[in-house]
């Protein structure tokens, strides 16, 4: 996305940006005083309320892509890009039925803290837990580096400090609250950031409708010159658009930043309203994605806005040309919020893998998990910032496969495994390994242009399908061993 944002360093924007950072620091100081144990650090002591968890979960589900890259993608390919976000109508409740109850109860029975913990408990297998941890770590490096670069670009756009300093400034602030307050600071910063994102999204959407004369008028403007833009698939093939729906729909069950949050809810009975509230929150935050993408297309068509020099200019150009400056400042802070929120979540999850899941896989437990968790947090954040600053186009490549890697490595073993007592340890390990190897090899081959996929087919989709089929096939081959691989408490949780 990111090298295309214009500089908006004006007193109002800088003022709103500084106010935003001041709130982040205040929340972090408050949270740091309440973080005393590893459980506080990684799962907020299993003590987050429904509303806070919902808003935080919305916030971490939406990265800077929803505010910058997504509208730019709609502007380029039309409504086909909506297939990335349309699955939100089913994914939250699907996650609730498939994972939320069982993971929250596993937390209740065993005090689990991480997503690989659940895989380890389900299959009674440190190896499966460790392999899941390694797969997550690979995906996290990609996501983190992408978010670090996004932070650098947005902070540079707001304060004019240069992308390099922007990366370190953004990562420094995120790191400070991640190290000091762990996930507790992350959650309450996410609540603030998610509220900011929702408010900014709704306001921008309403402005677009007002300036465009309503959605019907916007559609008529586009239909006059580019009707394909408003076809259901936009300028994509149906296969490509449906692929988005599959990978982002089914793949949502393997995204650790969302799944991990099920452990944190204070009272499991509050899960009742979680999917409804989260879905409504997501719809609000995603209004900007649709509104800006379609609105900018109409405004460029009728001459209200100049043609864009790059698709990622869609949101900033619209903000600077049709909305009040203070709203532009809010949205830029919202984008910074989205990237920092996602980064914090991934730092925390990555640190848990390093200090908790990998030692378990090697048959060891660290004594002071809180200390090592904080240390791992610093190492991961610094590594991501260094990668973001030095690896150029490689960062975009790393970001692309993050979602697909989580999906193909975790969905069958975790989501199906927690709901099918016939799934076996061998099936889970084979499926995780297949997802990891297929995603890495196909994405690398595509990045290096060794291999070109046919239109509509992506490495993520192929890896997810292969991981599913491997999981079922190997579990069937080793079905004799299935019954003896589930502990009584896990079995009870699977039966409820």
């Amino acid at each position: 996305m990111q090298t295309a944002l214009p500089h908006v360093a004006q007193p109002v924007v800088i003022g709103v940006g500084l106010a935003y950072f001041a709130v982040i620091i205040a929340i972090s100081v408050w949270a740091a005083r309440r973080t005393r144990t590893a459980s506080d650090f990684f799962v907020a002591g299993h003590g987050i309320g429904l509303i806070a968890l919902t808003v935080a979960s919305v916030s971490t589900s939406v990265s800077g892509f929803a505010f910058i890259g997504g509208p730019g993608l709609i502007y380029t390919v039309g409504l086909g890009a909506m297939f990335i976000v349309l699955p939100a109508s089913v994914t939250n409740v699907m996650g609730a039925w498939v994972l939320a109850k069982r993971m929250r109860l596993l937390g209740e029975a065993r005090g689990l803290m991480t997503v690989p913990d659940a895989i380890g408990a389900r299959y009674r297998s440190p190896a499966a837990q460790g392999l899941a941890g390694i797969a997550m770590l690979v995906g996290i490096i990609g996501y983190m580096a992408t978010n670090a670069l996004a932070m650098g670009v947005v902070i540079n756009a707001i304060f004019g400090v240069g992308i390099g300093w922007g990366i370190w400034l953004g990562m420094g602030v995120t790191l400070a609250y991640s190290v000091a307050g762990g996930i507790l600071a992350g959650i309450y910063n996410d609540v603030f950031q998610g509220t900011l994102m929702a408010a900014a999204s709704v306001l921008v959407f309403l402005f677009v409708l007002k300036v465009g004369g309503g959605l019907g008028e916007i559609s008529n403007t586009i239909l006059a010159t580019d009707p394909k833009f408003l076809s259901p698939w936009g300028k994509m093939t149906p296969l490509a658009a449906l692929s988005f729906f599959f990978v982002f729909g089914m793949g949502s069950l393997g995204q650790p930043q969302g799944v991990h949050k099920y452990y944190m809810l204070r009272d499991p009975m509050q899960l009742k309203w979680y999917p409804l509230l989260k879905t409504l929150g997501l719809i609000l935050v995603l209004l900007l994605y649709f509104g800006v993408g379609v609105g900018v297309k109409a405004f460029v068509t009728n001459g209200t806005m100049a043609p864009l020099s790059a698709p990622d200019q869609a949101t900033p150009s619209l903000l600077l040309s049709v909305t009040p400056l203070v709203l532009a400042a809010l949205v830029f802070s919202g984008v910074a919020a989205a990237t920092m929120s996602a980064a914090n979540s991934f730092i925390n999850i990555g640190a848990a893998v390093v200090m908790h899941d990998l030692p378990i896989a090697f048959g060891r437990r660290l004594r002071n998990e809180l200390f090592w968790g904080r240390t791992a947090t610093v190492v991961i954040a610094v590594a991501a910032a260094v990668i973001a600053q030095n690896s150029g186009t490689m960062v975009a490549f790393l970001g692309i496969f993050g979602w697909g890697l989580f999906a193909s490595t975790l969905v069958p073993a975790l989501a199906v495994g927690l709901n099918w007592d016939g799934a076996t340890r061998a099936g889970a390990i084979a499926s995780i390994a297949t997802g990891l190897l297929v995603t890495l090899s196909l994405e690398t081959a595509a990045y290096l242009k060794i291999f070109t996929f046919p239109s509509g087919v992506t490495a993520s989709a192929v890896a997810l399908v292969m991981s599913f089929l491997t999981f079922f096939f190997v579990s069937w081959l080793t079905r004799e061993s299935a019954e003896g691989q589930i502990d009584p408490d896990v079995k009870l949780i699977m039966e409820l």
Partner: protein
Amino acid sequence: MSGPRDVTRVAARFVLVGAILAIAAGYASAFKSGGAPSWAPWLLALGIPGALGAIMVLGATRGSKGIGRLKLPFLFVFVVLASGFCLALGLPIIESAGTPLLLGLPIRAAIVIYGIGLLPIVVLPVAYALTFDTQTLSEEDIARVREVGERARAAASQSEEGK
């Protein structure tokens, strides 16, 4: 695990595997010379709702109750997703200047955006909340899990002391 739940879960697993195979066949066909055949997206249009519906049924099934009253919401969502995709694929391309709009969008786009993107929200999360106490989780369930967890922890600590 026995009783009606097995039937529901076995059926859901068969549908899930069948749907994933349909999706795989759709992708595989795209590798033919000349690109994906016209039937390839139809496999995904039916396979994706089948896969998402089946995994939801797997997750929602409990005890001897199967999926109980959730049959209707699940059927509704499968029909909405499958018919939305199939209508978008099968309806004639009519988008042009002056084409009639439905809630501000051309008909096929409106079916996708409002039908697939919004209709399930009206049904699924509400069905989840309304059936939560009977179908998903109760205070008794939590108490049972805590009890079994405590027993497991006690057994584990005894085993550690024995070493």
